[in-house]
């Protein structure tokens, strides 16, 4: 395996760095929900989740071979302008952890303190990596995604588009969340279920290969829980704590209500009742000391589930475009016309 290195365009790197990283105000204005520990410089930086930069990728000379890849750009920024001599990245995307050097990014011929390299990495993958800066092996000081390996070591982590590996939630949390999310979206109405079965089963083999390559699991609501897991790992990391606390409370109170069944196996009526209680804010058995607004959690979950069902499938939900196709079956909505091939049919837009 040899990771493909894509030539580094300095303008591209600056375009994706300056807004977020360049600054002189030391206020911790980006540490909402106290997601970072006190003094962690990430709390001063805007949208740290954008790093490494995950983007679409096509090699025009090898289009067929490259559509299943992302452009992943690793960025190291020397905040104190103390310029290192060597910056490299090692990671699970490259055999033997061979360090790949980051290039010094210049502006008008001068060093900027940014170092970057773009690699072509397959979609649907999760990787861990570290930077090597003048011989020192360090975690990515910007990207907050980290993973503790079996040997106890912490590594920085990222995932590419269409990734389906669950990263932030536990298996039991996923099962429980699936049941709750099911009741929000239209896909578990009888008609919705018929549509989903029909949509997935009626696709020919070719379309299945093309469109459903990254479908998570057909028996869940088109991947919205996977979408939420990705969102909580990345863009809305600050809400992971809401899910951790509320799913735990819900698990406990459902077990109190029926001690014979696993919560994920409980009846639709049980969930319906819970849903109404969450909405009213009055949930018997809720631990208000740990989380004071069950209604807020429901609002959060509803926004996330709705967004996951109808956003681009690369974010992990709306598997195979099923959310859009559901709308298109019921209403005039030619979504394919605007969207890139192979998901859509637009001859010009490339995604």
């Amino acid at each position, binding site marked *: 395996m040899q990771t493909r290195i894509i030539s580094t365009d300095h*303008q591209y790197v*600056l*375009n*994706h*760095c*300056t*807004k977020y990283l*360049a*600054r*002189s*105000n030391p206020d*911790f204005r*980006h540490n*909402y929900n106290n997601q970072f520990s006190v003094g962690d410089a990430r709390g001063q930086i805007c*949208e740290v*989740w954008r790093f490494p930069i995950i983007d*679409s*990728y096509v090699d*025009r000379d090898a289009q067929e071979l490259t559509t299943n890849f992302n452009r992943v750009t690793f960025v190291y*920024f020397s905040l104190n*302008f103390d310029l290192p001599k060597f910056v490299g990245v090692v990671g699970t995307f490259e055999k033997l952890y061979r360090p790949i050097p980051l290039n010094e990014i210049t*502006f008008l011929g*001068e060093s*900027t303190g*940014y170092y970057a390299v773009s690699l072509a990495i397959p979609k649907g993958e999760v990787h861990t990596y570290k930077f090597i800066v003048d011989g020192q092996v360090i975690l990515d000081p910007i990207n907050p995604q980290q993973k503790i390996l079996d040997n106890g070591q912490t590594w920085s982590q990222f995932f590419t588009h269409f990734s389906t590996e669950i990263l932030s939630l536990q298996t039991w949390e996923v099962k429980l969340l699936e049941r709750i999310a099911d*009741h*929000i*979206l*239209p896909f*578990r*109405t009888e008609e*919705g279920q018929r549509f989903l079965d029909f949509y997935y089963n009626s696709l020919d083999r070719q379309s299945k290969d093309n469109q459903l390559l990254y479908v998570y699991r057909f028996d869940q609501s088109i991947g919205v829980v996977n979408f939420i897991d990705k969102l909580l790992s990345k863009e809305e990391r*600050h809400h992971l704590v809401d899910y951790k606390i509320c799913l735990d409370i819900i698990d406990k109170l459902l077990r109190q209500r029926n001690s014979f069944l696993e919560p994920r196996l409980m009846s639709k009526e049980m969930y319906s009742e819970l*849903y*109404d209680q969450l*909405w*009213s804010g009055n949930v018997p058995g809720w631990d208000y000391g740990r989380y004071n607004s069950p209604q807020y959690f429901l*609002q959060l979950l*509803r*926004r996330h589930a*709705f*967004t996951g069902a*109808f*956003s*681009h499938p690369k974010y992990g939900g709306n598997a195979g475009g099923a*959310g*859009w196709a559901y*709308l298109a079956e019921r*209403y*005039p*909505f*030619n*979504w394919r*016309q*605007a969207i890139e091939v192979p998901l859509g049919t*637009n*001859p*010009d*837009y*490339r995604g």
Partner: protein
Amino acid sequence: MSDFDAIVIGSGAGGAPIAYRLAKAGKSVLVLEKGPLFRPQYQTQDGLSDFKRDEIYSTGAEKRLQIPEVANNNAAYYSSHVEPDINDEPHIYRERDGRDFATIEGYTAQVVGGGTQLYGAVHLRFTPLDLKLQSFNAGRNDLREDPNGDIQRESRDWPITYEDLEPYYCQVEELVGLNGTAENQLKPFSQNFLQIPLSPNPISEFARQGMAQLGQNYSNQGQPIQPYRTPLAVITQDHAPSGRKVPQNPETIKTSYVNRYGDPLGLKSSTWVSLLSPIETLPNFQIWTNCVVTHLDCDGNRIHRIYFKDPAGREKTLEVKPGAVVIVACSAIESVRLLKLSAQENPEFDRRINQNDLLGKYFLTHCFGGAETIVVGNPPQYPPRQFDKSISLDSDWAIDYASSEAFIRDNGLWAGAAIYNNTSDQALPIALGRTHGSQDLDTIWKTFDSGFWGSITGQNNPRALHGQGMVDFFNENFGTRLSVSFMANQVPLKTNRIELHPSVKDKWNRPVAYIIKEWHSHDVYLMNVIAKQCEEILRLGGANPDPNQIEEGGIYLAENALARIANHILGGARFGNDRADSVLDIHCRAWDFDNLYVTDGSFMPTAGGANPTHTIEANAFRIADHLLERL
């Protein structure tokens, strides 16, 4: 010492036309732009653009305000990938109760092309009357809701007339690339460069019919006033001046990823694709992106040095050579702020820019609003009619009868309004959810959060929020909603102003802009009158026969009516012929400077009865002619 003849700060509607004209004439031009350069597909090596047809791009993940000084601290906000981050670069608005709120105006974009990347691209000329509201209103005794005579005291004629501006409107139409129709507009066209519009979305037919009926009551040169196809800055045919080509099937140009999206295909005529990229390879043109100008410095009446931060945030200076000019075009609020920050650094600059007390005063937005309804079934007891609104551009039809003198006088108004329908709003599912019931970007997701059903019926029906309730929501709202909007002049008031905030700082530790603004009683009256017209258009056009089912109103009704809804930011450095009464002279040059020009919307003494981009670009071309005479 730099060798540039002209340094243009900002690459949007106010800056790019000047850079284009001067560079084409062989002058050495530098554009400094705070934002990144995002190219359309046809300009990149791999054929991919940084703009995507992706609803997460236009209004991204949740963030939270962390500015302890403001009343909305810890509120959720959502912004596009090219909007400024509100924690980093907020604008602070003072509400009626004296509390401060952090926000940013819609369509503010930190990217090469500025707001022209994100806007819906409605590109209307102002009417001849819009430029002479002082003389039009002089001596009138029929003006409604103006107890103190503010209109006659505060309105100003522009120092130029429509006839002065008209050739430049034509230049914009030719060089930027617009489609639409000129016929039936109440603005004389000496030439017609508008490209042929694409077929309208069928839902817009209700708006067209309603407009046509109301237009019967008013005449233009003896003929009833008719609707016309809304001019949009989107090319529909190959565009020779910029070298852009349209797709083989032009119908595919219509996608609802237009309003609030940069265009990956470059068909939306941003100032980058239409004006700057055509001069990109000239040896006498440079654009430095991701560079924010922090202040200007002067030596006597000449700007001689520009301070800026490079893309890594390090302070740099640029010496301005003798004879060179500096053009500030950062959008109204940020331009005024830059001038005020520069005044703080140097008493000489301060004395010159504040030769009177008008800098930042007479800040303007638009009186806007409209009406919206679900298009009823046929017959009405049937479910609503549904249309594929995702196959459309931002607007199909517009009409000018509300800009006619007769309409203005009949209603006791001081100025008129453009009326047009919005076709593409809420066409995509996430846009429908997040903007449902919200008037602006500060209330995004709020109605959705507080429950679909409750927002529609006023009842709190918890069961409606999930499963079948979600189905019902789509049945009622997806592809069924039609809106008609108006855009009108706001009465200029000296108390509406841009200042520097006393304590809140941006990410560079510089004071942020502080906006203090109120609606005049006549503004409220005007918005009510014209919103009612929009309601009538929907009713007469057959979208909905029941006025009770048509929501209508002016933006002053919104929960935060003073803040983010200010999509069009204008004024604050008005131009004029009297140095005691204006910040800029007729050429948009600051009165006591030789080489300092301000060419974004801040120059406007009145806001015009239409979306402002066309006029900002036309005026910038006009200034470019003046600059060519002196350079």
